[in-house]
């Protein structure tokens, strides 16, 4: 799976946002967002609620549409060309806060649906791949169960496996552990850390500092629709520069 556009030795850019702006009606939710993510990089995005973190990563796979600027994913520009959107969505996996598993399908069917319908992979092969990934997230024995029969942590790991079954080149995570009970957060983070160590390009909206410190190449801090600070995890958590970063960190660390 070599990208035909990658001709020079410079690190390949997986995701690139150029002066991205977005409005919800009158409300300016993303303001001149610029970001380059190299292939294999792990980016953690944090910031106060309502700052536009979800909106930004949802623009990357076109769950939301940006109105100005450029978003290039895997060398393909996101515009109104449906072909481009389809192509990008195949290469970009997403994990949601509330898992969004399909409750009427078994775990295995959840994992096979997109490979079979989007990639046109035969059922047998799709199931084999799905079992492989379910094994990797450590729930192969739940394959025949329905999502409603699993715990939150298990459901989120299934959701991760479901995304991976499409063999994406980029993974987006939107607060994957925020809806989980404390004792289940670790199992999901462990899965994500393992994925990061396998070299996946990842953009994660999360406030899990442990995760950020373990795997992130850089941390992005967003506030009011802007990226206002970007640094290595160590620098960002220990020596935040911006006033609002300091305030935010003191709030999530403080009490």
């Amino acid at each position, binding site marked *: 799976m070599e990208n035909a556009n990658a001709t020079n030795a410079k690190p390949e850019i997986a995701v690139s946002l150029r002066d991205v702006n977005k409005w919800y009606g009158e409300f300016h939710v993303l303001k001149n967002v610029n970001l380059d993510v190299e292939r294999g990089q792990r980016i953690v995005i944090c910031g106060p609620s309502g700052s536009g973190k979800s909106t930004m990563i949802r623009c990357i796979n076109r769950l939301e549409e940006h109105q100005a600027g450029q978003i290039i994913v895997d060398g393909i520009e996101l515009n109104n060309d449906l072909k481009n959107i389809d192509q990008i*969505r195949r290469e970009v996996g997403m994990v949601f806060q509330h898992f969004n598993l399909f409750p009427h399908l078994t775990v295995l069917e959840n994992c096979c649906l997109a490979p079979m319908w989007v990639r046109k992979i035969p059922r047998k092969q799709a199931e084999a791949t799905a079992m492989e990934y379910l094994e990797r997230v450590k729930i192969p024995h739940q394959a025949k169960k329905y999502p409603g029969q699993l715990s939150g942590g298990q459901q989120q790991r299934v959701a991760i496996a479901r995304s991976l079954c499409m063999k994406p080149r980029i993974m987006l995570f939107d607060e994957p552990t925020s809806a989980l009970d404390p004792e289940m957060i670790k199992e999901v983070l462990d899965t994500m850390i393992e994925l990061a160590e396998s070299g996946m390009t990842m953009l994660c909206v999360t406030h899990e500092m442990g995760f950020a410190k373990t795997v992130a190449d850089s941390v992005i801090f967003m506030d009011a629709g802007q990226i206002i600070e970007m640094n290595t995890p160590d620098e960002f958590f220990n020596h935040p520069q911006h006033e609002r970063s300091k305030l935010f960190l003191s709030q999530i660390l403080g009490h």
Partner: protein
Amino acid sequence: MVAYVNTETLPSLPPPKGLQGPAAWMRQNLFSNWINGTITVVLVIGILAALIPFVNWAFIKADWVGTSRDDCTSGGACWVFVYVHFKLFMLGLYPEAETWRALLVGGILVLTLAGLMIKGVPLKKYIQIFALFFFPIVAYVLLSGGYFGLPHVETNFWGGLLLTLVIAIVGIVAAFPLGILLALGRRSSMPIVKAICVVFIEVWRGVPLITVLFMSSVMLPLFLPEGMEIDKLLRALVGITLFQAAYLAEVVRSGLQAIPKGQTEAANALGLTYWQGMYKVILPQALKIVIPGIVNSFIALFKDTSLVLIIGLFDLLATIQGAFSNPKWLGYAIEGYLFAALVYWIFCFGMSRYSQHVERSLKTTH
């Protein structure tokens, strides 16, 4: 505060005696206090008082077989009326010599339905394809004839339960996909598609079925070019289908609304197209939620088919009414209506039970 550690693990015990069994159930539910007990006794007496004379009339003192009203001598119900007209009620004026064709269609229908509904029947997929695409053709060719040397039977001669079933099944099968498309259209982000669907749904829903049938039989011909004629049954079928589709669209839409946005987002994020996502993710869930509503509207449609009698089609109810208006059989309206009620009830109750069975079998959580 007293610090306390409980190291004892209590065993699970069976519930106390006297709380289970039929006697306990009756004591708890029927005779829990004197008001409750009185109500129980009064209701039981009331039910018996109503039921005994009815059973006496309808079964014990009834006459069952014969050839004319003179065979009804016992003073109870005269089921001879139904017995004599049974073929008329089932098939209307469908020609005697061709009766086997209608029966064959009925037989195929029963087998197909059984194949679809009974668990564990092999080749389900092929039965489904047959039911949806080939059965209508087979049924039409057999009933209408004109091919393979089968004499043509005009739809004027179709009647009774046969006609009721033709209208109900066509109405249900054709309205279902159309209703889904209308529901999706009404939620579409494309303004023109949305507007068309809204107007269509609101117009058809706002008009009584009787009006639709009248328009299809009286007004539609006025708009057709001179000399062009469309079969009366076909016109009624189109009217009923569109009417039913509008109702169904709203039922389906309520199901679509109940599906969280996250489901669509997950489907999209995985790369499924709109139609793939609808077909594999959203509709299965939405339709499951609204099974009771869908079946409700199918049951309503099944009974509403009886309105076709006002445009001169002789369905089950119309043939029965025709029969007891015959001077030779005057006075047997009660038997006629009871028989009609029984037949309608069997089909409607069947649909209702089947839908409950489907709902149970689709449960995926505990």
